[in-house]
């Protein structure tokens, strides 16, 4: 077994679907972390819109919101975000995945909205690794990992679904 065969072995493992390791394959559909619950408070929403600079009265002005179909203020579209429920756990869990492509970057996010969320709601979030696939990039293979977070309110209704894509390259 010379140097050449070692190189061949390395190229082989990157070319094939070994990029999606057994560890990743077995995680698909499974919870990545324990569910987390947050009670939404007006103060959180106030600080959130101060951060984004969004002065839409629907998020903050009760007198205004009272006259809308919602009846009271609702949270803005990106208010529910997985890092607000798990500040570090998901990143650590993903970083621990031993896969050949070591560098990591955020790929994107998708939100689907089903029910409005309001201050006073108690939201429970669960996170699963929902998908993993390989694509050919300009400079090599890319491993896309999607984490799907489901936000359920106190009535047991799915309020929001968030899909975060992380890319290892």
């Amino acid at each position, binding site marked *: 077994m010379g140097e050449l065969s070692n190189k061949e072995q390395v190229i082989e493992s990157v070319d094939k679907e070994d990029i999606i390791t057994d560890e990743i394959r077995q995680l698909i559909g499974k919870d990545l972390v324990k569910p987390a619950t947050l009670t939404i408070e007006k103060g959180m929403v106030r600080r959130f819109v101060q*951060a984004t600079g969004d002065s839409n*009265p629907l998020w903050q002005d009760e007198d205004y919101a009272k006259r809308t179909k*919602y009846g009271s203020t609702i949270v803005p*579209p990106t208010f529910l975000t997985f*890092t607000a429920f798990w*500040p570090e756990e998901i990143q650590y869990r993903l970083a621990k995945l031993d896969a050949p492509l070591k560098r990591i970057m955020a*790929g994107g996010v998708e939100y689907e909205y089903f029910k409005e969320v309001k201050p006073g709601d108690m939201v429970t979030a669960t996170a699963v690794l929902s998908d993993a696939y390989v694509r050919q990039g300009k400079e090599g293979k890319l491993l896309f990992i999607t984490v799907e977070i489901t936000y359920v309110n106190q009535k047991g209704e799915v309020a929001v679904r968030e899909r975060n894509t992380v890319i290892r390259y």
Partner: protein
Amino acid sequence: MEKEKVFYEDVKINDKIPSLIKQPTTRQLVKWAGVSGDYYEIHYDKDIAQKSGLPGVVVHGKLVVSFLAQMITDWIGEDGDLKVISCGYRGLLYPGEDAICNGKIAKKYVEDGKHYAECEIWVENSKNQSVIKGKAIVVLPSKYER
């Protein structure tokens, strides 16, 4: 703030959504880290950002998505419903750069009695470099609803 309602019947394919320009500062990035819980150092620690190969701290992708979401909710007002926002990160944005948010109507259809408009949305910096490309799906009120 009396705004005209956006009705399904009034939007046409290729109509532009009113543009929104945001100018994120490093202070805003710190505020966003605080409210979002995303404390990744490349967004506020210049040394770590540079050690990761970046020229400086970068704006959180999700903060830029928040700007796009604001563009949509500003446009549809209280009578419209945002159903989906989907964004792919295409390039980095740095504090001090403009986040120029744009969108246009790509499709419209009625399904299950609801009036949908699908929009192509995107963010560029002032050098016309792509930061985010994505889509949004909204439900709009119809002029003919009771």
